[in-house]
């Protein structure tokens, strides 16, 4: 009896979770490799959440999908802003006739038109302490009066959205003026990030703390199914403003057929299905079966995808899969805490240089990246102004003899008398293996290390509290400006919570950096950036690691594909050749 009852129960439970789906129309199938943190633009910190948020929400500006180097172009702004001579005032014209997606929060459930005041509201929201936005740093100290508004909100315990902020002004429904406290050329990049996307006050207020599960934007797609741990489905926004496919691109794009759809209304697909596939193996298998359209190659499936000659293996060639290899705008490094109490020796430049020389990155590129990474010579990665392909960093040559010599000069011949260094890293398998690799390398010059693994938040906390000595970390660009990498070594950022975890303080560096970051892009600025990068290369506040090469595959039926470092809203440009897909999947 009991058993029968349980069986019945189990059938009930199983059928309880039923839902069937079929593919109709042009569907883009993609995989998200991490669970997303909700659909609130103000919380879109990681790339995965940012990508999902950008399907629904839009901001004033965006990156051009095909032009390289990365160029900013208007999105909800009608044109690029007028910038005053002193670089402090940005005048935006808002595109007319852009509608919010339909939602119960609006009268009669019909989405209303986007107004300039929506941006003011959205920027204030980033400053609202109750929202706990991870994007506040983008605006902090930059917009006239916004910091005071935030301080008042903290004090009173409630943000007053009616209160005026001098630096945010809407003279009419379609004009927005932003006043900065100091010239920040990087500010335009901030306006491409999902953080600064337009949200509607009615929607935020209707859903309150559950707003993150009710995305309502102006974007090309409307969310239809939302199961953040499994699957998200979007359908084409029927009321999307008349955005069109770009007519220009980088040299060669036209020839490659990337601009065949020029002038067509966006988006080009009817639906986007996003599967959350955190584990490498299932994601890979889904791609091999044609269930998802694009995938990065997991480290351990590399041999299956790419042959010894660097090209696709026969198995994948037969599937007509395309391979793309692009230099990612990131940097891995091993940082010294130059103010460590346990290891005061890290203050000594010779010691840092010796340790940098001991690290053999060439082998690690082979072991950990399947040769899909390049040795970084300075903190500025390839692809942005300031990167210098001709500069060779002598402390990245893995010259063990020189390393030993420098260490001896510092008074630690063969590592004698050097304290044991604690190396902090993350707890996952690959990080742990990399840590073992660091240990192994430093042993070559007689420096002993002890490995300590952490969760990501715990590691951040330790860095913030200066409880680290040596640690491995990676930095991915927030925007394509060398400033974003060089600020990791800026003196005033050497404080709890600051980005300069090494506590590198160099007056000359700081002076030049302040000068460079306030400049518009120009050959002089590039020269300064290079100079700054070389200072870091010489002083070794960190052991530079690698710049990764993003290797990805996509299915033959996906058209207009191009690797994009920052483009979180690329989905609207992709076309699915449904006939080809049907034919190939038969």
């Amino acid at each position, binding site marked *: 009896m009991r058993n029968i009852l*349980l069986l019945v129960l189990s059938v009930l439970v199983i059928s309880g*979770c*039923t839902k069937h789906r079929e593919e109709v129309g042009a569907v883009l199938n993609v995989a998200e490799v991490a669970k997303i943190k909700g659909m609130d633009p103000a919380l879109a910190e990681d790339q995965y959440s940012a990508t999902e948020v950008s399907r629904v929400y839009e901001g004033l500006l965006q990156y051009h999908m095909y032009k390289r180097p990365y160029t900013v172009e208007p999105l909800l702004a009608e044109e690029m802003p007028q910038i005053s001579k002193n670089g402090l005032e940005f005048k935006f014209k808002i595109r007319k006739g852009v509608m919010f997606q339909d939602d119960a929060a609006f009268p009669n459930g019909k989405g209303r038109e986007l107004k300039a005041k929506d941006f003011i509201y959205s920027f204030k929201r980033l400053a609202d302490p109750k929202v706990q936005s*991870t994007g506040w740093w983008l605006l902090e100290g930059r917009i006239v009066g916004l910091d005071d508004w935030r301080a008042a909100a903290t004090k009173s315990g409630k943000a007053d959205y009616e209160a005026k902020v001098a630096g945010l002004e809407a003279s009419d429904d379609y004009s927005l003026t932003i006043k900065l406290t100091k010239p920040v050329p990087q500010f335009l990049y901030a306006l491409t990030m999902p953080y600064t996307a337009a949200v509607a006050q009615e929607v935020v207020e209707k859903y309150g703390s559950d707003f993150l599960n009710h995305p309502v934007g102006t974007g090309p797609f409307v969310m239809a199914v939302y199961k953040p*741990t499994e699957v998200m489905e979007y359908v084409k926004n029927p009321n999307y403003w008349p955005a069109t496919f770009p007519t220009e691109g980088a040299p060669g794009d036209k020839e490659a057929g990337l601009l065949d759809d020029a002038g067509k209304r966006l988006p080009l697909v009817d639906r986007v299905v996003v599967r959350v596939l955190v584990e490498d193996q299932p994601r890979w298998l889904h791609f091999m079966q044609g269930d998802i359209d694009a995938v990065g190659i997991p480290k351990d499936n590399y041999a299956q995808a790419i042959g010894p000659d660097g090209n696709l293996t026969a198995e994948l060639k037969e599937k007509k899969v395309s391979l793309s290899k692009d230099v990612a705008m990131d940097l891995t490094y091993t940082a010294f805490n130059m103010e460590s109490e346990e290891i005061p020796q890290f203050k000594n430049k010779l010691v840092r240089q010796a340790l940098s020389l001991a690290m053999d990155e060439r082998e690690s590129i082979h072991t950990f990246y399947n040769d899909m990474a390049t040795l970084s010579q300075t903190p500025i990665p390839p692809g942005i102004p300031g990167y210098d392909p001709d500069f060779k960093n002598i402390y990245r040559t893995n010259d063990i003899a020189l390393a030993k010599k420098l260490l001896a000069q510092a008074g630690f011949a063969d590592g004698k008398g050097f304290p044991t260094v604690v190396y902090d890293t993350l707890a996952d398998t690959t990080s742990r293996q990399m840590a073992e690799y660091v240990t192994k390398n430093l042993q070559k010059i007689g420096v002993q290390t002890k490995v300590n693994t952490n969760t990501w938040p715990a590691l951040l906390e330790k860095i913030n509290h200066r409880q680290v000595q040596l640690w491995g970390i990676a930095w991915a660009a927030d925007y394509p400006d060398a400033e974003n990498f060089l600020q990791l070594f800026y003196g005033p950022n050497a404080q709890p919570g600051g980005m300069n975890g090494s506590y590198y303080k160099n007056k000359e560096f700081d002076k030049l950096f302040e000068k460079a970051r306030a400049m518009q892009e120009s050959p002089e600025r590039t020269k300064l950036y290079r100079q700054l990068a070389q200072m870091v290369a010489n002083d070794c506040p960190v052991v530079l690691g690698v710049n990764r090469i993003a290797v990805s595959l996509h299915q033959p039926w996906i058209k207009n594909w191009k690797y994009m470092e920052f483009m979180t809203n690329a989905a609207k440009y992709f076309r699915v050749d449904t006939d080809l897909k049907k034919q190939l999947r038969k």
Partner: protein
Amino acid sequence: MMNYIIRRLLYTIPILIGITLITFFFFNVVGGDPVSIMLGKHANAQMIADMRHEMGFDRPLIWQYFDFLKQIVTFDFGRSYASKQLISKMILDGAPVSLCYTLPAFVIAMLISISLSLLVAFWRGGWFDKITVIICVAGLSVPSLAYILFGQYWFAYKWGMFPISGFQPGFPEMISYIALPVIITVVLSIGGELRFYRTVMLDEIHQDYIRTARSKGLSERVVMFKHVLKNAMIPIITNVVIEIPFLVTGSILLENFFGIPGLGNQIVEAINTSDFPVIKAQTIIFSLLYCVFNLLTDILYSLVDPRVSLK
């Protein structure tokens, strides 16, 4: 009888309080509050202090404890640091997913082990009994991770019999995804279950009434199935009831390996992201659940076996 039940109920109260105290001690006193996770890589000291205030981490412990009790009573554990979702909703979403594979696995393992235990008891002391016991002990000695890894490697990766991992809600799509997890769970649990039921059956066989039945000339088969099994129902049912909370929590390793978005997987993710409130909520909910089922078992037991009393 009523007296016993009431006393047993009253006895549960200090235990419940104890569970809340221990959990609170772990997470609020020993643990601390990693607020950095919520603020991301650009957080500064002021933002962290504001957040601590916002979250009530700077309040006296006794108030924090009352807040915790309130959370339990209202089943509102706030939002996860990492996913920003309501924890109560996460748990309600995750539990059925875990049940999707634990329940079938549990039923299958139970049916197999009860049937085998009857056979073992029937041929007790013989070679079948001995071999079964040896296999059970050997099976219990293999690390559970090895079952999962080998299962995934051979059945899914090499032979392609099942998807390597993943989960799709819905019947029948789900079947291919849960098949391998169910098989592995059955293999993992059958050793212990079989050992337990064998002991139960052997205990019954040595009872006086069985000897009486036998002396009346009843055949061994009738004795086994009519008397032994019937009387063994009490420990069997008790065992079933006490297992139920574990079915809900699912298996941490299995769900992580197979990418099943159940409660076990939530725990792993919470550990990887220092998501304190999620771990805390799961710990307290399942301890309380376990406590309640323990109570149920005891009451059930006292109903079928009036000799039981609270010592």
